[in-house]
């Protein structure tokens, strides 16, 4: 086996917020993850790169506790995710994690403001308070002027910034972004990345950024390459 596809053997650095060790995940006969490792600190932006079908989205889903790995350990803030109940994991995702995807993440019937406020409302916040906080995030992401419009009435770039605002409104400690600029042109994608990384750094949130675009990965602090379900931490491997 070549070193390029060997899992990183070194232990995760001390003080890591989220750590994955030797993750395996198979879908039928296909190994999506075959010994992936990962670690991230608070305030750090880590890009997960690799060709299509390499396992990078599966890694993100495992890290976020959406999909349980077949084997391996996942530790968030010192707690073993595998030992948690489904309810505990759901609560963790709601309160500590934020998500941005490439498509279809906004509720079309709600206004952009209501979309951003939604995670707070689901957590029990009052409407006025939730919308005040949401509007603050929309200002930060420069989309407050579309607060009253529905997702179908705004541009792709604006919609994605609304989605980023929604992912950050609960103050997550880890933001998972899966191809967040995949549907945008260069200029809009760039603006989304600038605002996303600025906002995350200002709140000390860690960002797990899955992308196949090098220009997007250039906004990260370091990158992990996933190939055939195995990861390689480029910084720690060099």
């Amino acid at each position, binding site marked *: 086996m*070549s*070193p*390029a*596809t060997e899992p990183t053997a070194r232990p995760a650095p001390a003080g890591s917020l989220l750590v994955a060790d030797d993750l395996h995940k198979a879908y039928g006969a296909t190994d999506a993850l075959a010994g992936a490792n990962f670690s991230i600190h608070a305030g750090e932006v880590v890009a997960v790169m690799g*060709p299509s079908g390499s396992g990078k989205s599966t890694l993100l889903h495992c890290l976020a506790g959406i999909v349980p790995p077949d084997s391996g350990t996942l530790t968030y803030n010192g707690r073993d995710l595998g030992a948690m109940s489904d309810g505990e994991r759901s609560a963790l995702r709601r309160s500590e994690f934020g998500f941005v995807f490439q498509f279809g993440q906004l509720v079309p019937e709600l206004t952009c403001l209501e979309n951003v406020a939604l995670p707070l409302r689901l957590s029990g916040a009052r409407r006025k308070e939730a919308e005040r906080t949401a509007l603050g995030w929309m200002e930060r992401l420069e989309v407050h002027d579309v607060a009253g419009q529905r997702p179908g009435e705004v541009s792709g770039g604006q919609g994605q910034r609304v989605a980023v605002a929604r992912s950050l409104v609960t103050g997550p400690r880890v933001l998972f972004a899966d191809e967040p600029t995949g549907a945008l042109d260069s200029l809009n994608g760039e603006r989304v990345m*600038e605002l996303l990384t600025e906002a995350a750094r200002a709140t000390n949130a860690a960002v797990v950024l899955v992308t*196949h*675009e*090098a*220009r997007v*990965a*250039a*906004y*990260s602090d370091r*990158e992990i*390459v996933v*190939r055939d379900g195995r990861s*390689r931490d*480029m*910084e720690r*491997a*060099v």
Partner: protein
Amino acid sequence: MQMRLRLSSWLVAQFPAPLWGDHPIRSYTPQVYTPCIVRRMSIPHTLLGLLESGPRHGYDLKKTFDERFGHDKPLHYGQVYSTMSRLLKNGLVEVDGVEAGGGPERKRYAITEAGITDVRTWLATPEKPEPYLTSTLYTKVVLALLTGRDAADLLDTQRAEHLRMMRILTDRKRTGDLADQLICDHALFHLEADLRWLELAAARLDKLGKAVGA
């Protein structure tokens, strides 16, 4: 010996001489991309173009050039004055006036009609697209395969170096003015193209290994 012969004849067949001649192997350092925009720039045409807006002294020309195009690689005074004397000799500029001061005389240069035609022709002529580093990287990958070294490792290391450079440029864009942003974008798009090639090469390493007989 047999291996060396096989390798050299294969290399000659794969890489025609003009490719090597036109594109000497450059070491890949952070200084490569942005300065190379300036390095390949035609300094005489650029100075001529700057003179189209009105006569200037050599010092003003250098200052404007450095502000607009120099960035990491400002012009030397000697380059400006030797270029101006060549342009003067070729009739593309003329001396518009001479100022005597405490120091040496200062010549003010103006562009001539021939100079304006030269700039117009230069601007209208498309630049030859540059294939950049791909041939060097390709050579390294093939040599790694032929010599039994780890080509995937080589590609990953190169990818990390490209991304490191892209981070520097992305950061520079964030704090730079519009000119800085455009210069960095130019470099970033080329680095991105290299990275796509690295991805493709990584995905085809097995096939390439068989094709070159490694």
